[in-house]
């Protein structure tokens, strides 16, 4: 995407490390050469590196299979290759994606995703085979089919490897096994920080951890694994279908291999041919028009590529949403298990090739952040309600923001209030999703509760007596309680929801102004960073500058009600760290500092980019440190990974070695957890709202 192409080499460094970690040395070598050369042909790559043509080809195939690079052949004889930065960075997020999907649709669905990630992209037939190997393969595989990431993946991968043209993916020797193993471990780790969000997943986490611990202990794990097994092909297809409907996985399309630049060129050429007879328009108005038309065409190319293929019958759509609703309920309440419906699964085309869609993950991450924010600012129950609203709205949101918007025109006031009806939500929409055991009274003023549910009183300590049983609250009153929570959301200065309409006899309609909230979230992260790196007064200064624009020392003092002398130090500290900008404007012809205005100002966009850059750098350092720590215990790790040692650690490893190994695992986990945390920050800074003109 355009903003990323401007990204400085620090992102490149990070991506090379990530590719190296996941796909081994060869792939990362080729990747780094391509980073260096930019868009280039095979021949150019060979010239730019010491690798042989064969090696480069092997590397490229891996990268293409994983969608880490684009390729495009305008002239059929030469193909150009180019890095897909978005996807390369996303290597870090597969684990998170799996956990998000597990949270929403259960473990089976997340397992499919992990398989898909291992393949890069795969046809439905491949997935069928991975889960239900044809009888001629090793039969004892079947008992372990559903086992969590660790063991299924290599096996499935191995299977696909045998049957697909891209056998090189996994054929590159040393990296295959260790690669996917760290892979699995990482998924656990990046998953960890999410858990403090939703309590329901805490149990899952415990389960998962115990899963991995006891993975050799079959008796223990068997029962649990059984539940997480996908038992029939129909069930598998249904889950794939569910994920596709919700936009988590998409059909692979030729357009996916086009780099943003190529897409732009193609769209532009097409428009020029069609509308302007191949000539560049001359007038200003026509040129502006062209920009809009190209953006529209690019959106069309993309949307065609993303369209879920199974939506032939409009009638089913509603019902399918119900399908995912029921699983949402499952996750929120944790009561009854999701069971596949009896209606026939979609007739999946076995040749359909699918891949994961990372854009959807940004939407889910945004949801998660918002919910966490509400929990901090309001209350847990309100956050739950907000989560339900966001989940429902997610269905209609393939991405967080439109990277190719129409050129800005001053909206006419009537149209400005228009909101896409699919992004409107009412309390009625979510009342069904919320668990009936959720205590809607919590987080509200008891007086407000009694307005809705009469016949109770408030005790001295603030308790409601006798307690209202959440399960028995009539539908209408539940609705009213939920609306009370939603009003709180809308009162909040963050404007978590925005009132849209309340028609007679209908529920109040709400919508969410994601872009505005996203900007506030960026500001909040900047505040957090400054609050920790500088101090509280620094944050106050930044807020003052943001509110009032460019100020000189006196004015800053006035806004902050402090003496200017005390502010000087803060300004210079923040200017050094790059959070505020300073400026000197001479009042007279001479450039004398005494006769100049010294202004400071704050530019959110600039600070956002700086912070993003710093965060990337921090992540690179974490990866480097991890490599260093690994290097320290290289020999021990080699020993511990030996096939005879695995499973018999107590026997072959000395107590000192075991201790060192344990320490290293701890370090590894801490570093990965931290990477995950920094990734969350990257999401806020980069993914939730488009590059905007600073406000």
């Amino acid at each position, binding site marked *: 995407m355009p903003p990323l192409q401007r990204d400085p080499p620090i992102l490149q460094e990070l991506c090379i490390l990530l590719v190296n970690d996941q796909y081994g040395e060869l792939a990362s070598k080729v990747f780094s050469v391509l980073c260096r050369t930019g868009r280039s042909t095979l021949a150019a790559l060979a010239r730019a590196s010491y690798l042989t043509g064969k090696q480069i080809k092997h590397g490229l195939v891996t990268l293409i299979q994983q969608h880490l690079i684009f390729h495009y052949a305008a002239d059929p004889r030469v193909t150009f290759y180019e890095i897909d930065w978005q996807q390369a960075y996303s290597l870090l997020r597969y684990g998170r994606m799996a956990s998000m999907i597990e949270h929403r649709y259960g473990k089976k669905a997340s397992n499919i995703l992990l398989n898909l990630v291992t393949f890069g992209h795969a046809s439905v037939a491949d997935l069928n085979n991975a889960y239900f190997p044809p009888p001629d393969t090793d039969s004892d595989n079947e008992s372990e089919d559903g086992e969590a990431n660790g063991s299924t993946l290599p096996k499935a991968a191995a299977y696909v490897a045998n049957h697909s043209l891209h056998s090189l993916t996994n054929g590159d020797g040393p990296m295959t096994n260790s690669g996917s193993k760290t892979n699995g471990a990482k998924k656990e780790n990046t998953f960890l920080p999410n858990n403090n969000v939703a309590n329901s997943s805490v149990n899952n986490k415990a389960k998962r951890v115990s899963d991995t611990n006891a993975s050799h202990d079959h008796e223990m794990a068997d029962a649990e694994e059984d539940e997480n097994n996908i038992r029939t092909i129909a069930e598998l297809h249904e889950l794939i279908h569910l994920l596709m409907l919700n936009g988590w996985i998409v059909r692979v399309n030729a357009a996916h291999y086009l780099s943003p630049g190529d897409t732009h060129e193609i769209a532009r050429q097409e428009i020029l041919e069609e509308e302007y007879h191949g000539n560049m328009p001359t007038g200003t108005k026509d040129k502006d028009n062209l920009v809009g038309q190209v953006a529209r065409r690019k959106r069309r190319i993309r949307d065609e590529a993303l369209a879920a293929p199974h939506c032939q019958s409009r009638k089913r759509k509603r019902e399918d949403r119900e399908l995912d609703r029921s699983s949402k309920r499952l996750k929120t309440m944790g009561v009854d298990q999701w069971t596949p419906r009896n209606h026939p699964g979609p007739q999946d085309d076995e040749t359909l090739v699918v891949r994961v869609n990372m854009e959807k993950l940004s939407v889910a991450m945004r949801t998660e952040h918002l919910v966490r924010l509400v929990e901090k600012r309001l209350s847990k129950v309100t956050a739950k309600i907000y989560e339900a609203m966001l989940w429902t709205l997610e269905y209609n949101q393939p991405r967080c923001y439109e990277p190719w918007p129409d050129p800005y025109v001053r909206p006419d006031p009537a149209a400005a209030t228009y909101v896409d009806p699919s992004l409107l939500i009412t309390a009625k929409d979510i009342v069904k999703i919320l668990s009936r055991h959720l205590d809607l009274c919590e987080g509200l003023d008891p007086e407000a509760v009694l307005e809705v549910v009469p016949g109770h009183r408030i005790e001295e300590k603030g308790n409601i007596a006798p307690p209202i049983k959440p399960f028995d609250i009539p539908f209408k009153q539940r609705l009213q309680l939920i609306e009370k929570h939603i009003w709180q959301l809308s009162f909040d200065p963050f404007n978590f929801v925005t009132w849209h309409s309340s028609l007679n006899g209908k529920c109040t309609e709400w919508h969410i102004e994601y872009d505005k909230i996203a900007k506030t979230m960026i500001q*909040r992260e900047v505040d*957090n960073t400054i609050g920790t*790196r500088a101090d509280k007064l620094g944050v106050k200064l930044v807020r003052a500058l943001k509110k009032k624009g460019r100020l000189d020392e006196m004015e800053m003092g006035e806004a902050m*009600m402090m*003496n200017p002398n005390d502010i000087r130090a803060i300004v210079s500290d923040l200017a050094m760290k790059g959070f505020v900008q300073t400026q000197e404007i001479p009042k007279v012809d001479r450039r004398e500092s005494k006769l100049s205005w010294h202004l400071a100002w704050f530019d959110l966009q600039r600070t956002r980019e700086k912070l993003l850059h710093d965060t990337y*750098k921090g992540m690179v350092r*974490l990866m480097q*440190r991890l490599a260093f720590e690994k290097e320290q215990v290289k020999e021990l790790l080699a020993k511990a990974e030996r096939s005879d040692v695995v499973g018999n650690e107590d026997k072959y490893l000395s107590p000192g070695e075991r201790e060192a190994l344990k320490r290293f695992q701890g*370090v590894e986990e801490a570093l990965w957890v931290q990477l995950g945390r920094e990734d969350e920050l990257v999401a806020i800074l980069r993914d939730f709202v488009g590059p905007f003109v600073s406000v």
Partner: protein
Amino acid sequence: MPPESKTEPPPDDESALASVGPSKVDALYSKCAEAPQGTFFIQRELASMQIAESTGQLLALLQELTDRHLMKSLELHDGQPCWVLRTREEAEKLRQMSADERLLYQMIDDAQNDGVWSKALRARAGLTPQRTNKVLKALESKGLVKAITNVKVPNKKMYLLKDLEPSPEIAGGPWQTDGEYDLALIHAVSNLVEKYVREKTWKQVPVGMNRLPQDIEENPRMHSVPRNMSIQLYPSAKSILRYITEGQFIKEKRITEGYMEELLDMMTLDGRLEKMSATTYRTARDSSFGMNGFVEAPCGTCPVFDLCGNEGEITASTCAYFTEWIDARAEDR
């Protein structure tokens, strides 16, 4: 509506002047002195005192009083001339002044509580800096004027009459003392405001208020929930000010709504208050800063972050902060 500037004395009436007797002058003065000090008299009012026999004579009387410095002539904002009394002592002091002193004094007097910048005085009086300083010193020692600093431009020395309070423009309002922000006062008042607003906007209820209270829970854990009211009824500058004044928390200083608004704005920047609507506020439920992934990691707070590279003396593998951080994490586990 203080009069802006001095007008020329009303036109003299030669014929009337002759009939002015000293007794009438004194009579007019004492009649006017009956009114509270600082009262502005307009011509109609003075005429109604029935001391002068004609308008011409009245004006002559006033001129006489003005010449004796017992009265000061001014102009109301609509251009109408008016007069104000001086005390006899003041008039005496003025009489004893030299011409320069009187000139500067009158300029300072004209400015009233806005004060005059010493440089402006000099320029307008056309005196040398040395002379100006000398004259101002003399005035100061006589206890007629005082020097103050302007909060907006601290190195501008301003002069105003001894018994006047500088206008908030230059003195900086209630939050400032001697041109500096009174941090202790601001701290105290903002704490009061925060407490008041918190009580008004959040309610402390036990966690799980809708459950049967457990026997063990003598002191249940409390958390705050937003109060059930419309945002228009949240505290505003007006209601907060009323609370502060009625509680008589601040003596000596008068706070107006504008200054209260200034304080509230500042507290909003602090993150202690949140603006709910155009005029109303609430406190933040939790105003502490969170952490984020970047600053939790050693790099986020590293003093040599910018010097750190892939190679060289400072790298991720040689980093002492990293070692410390990893050890701390290991201990936590």
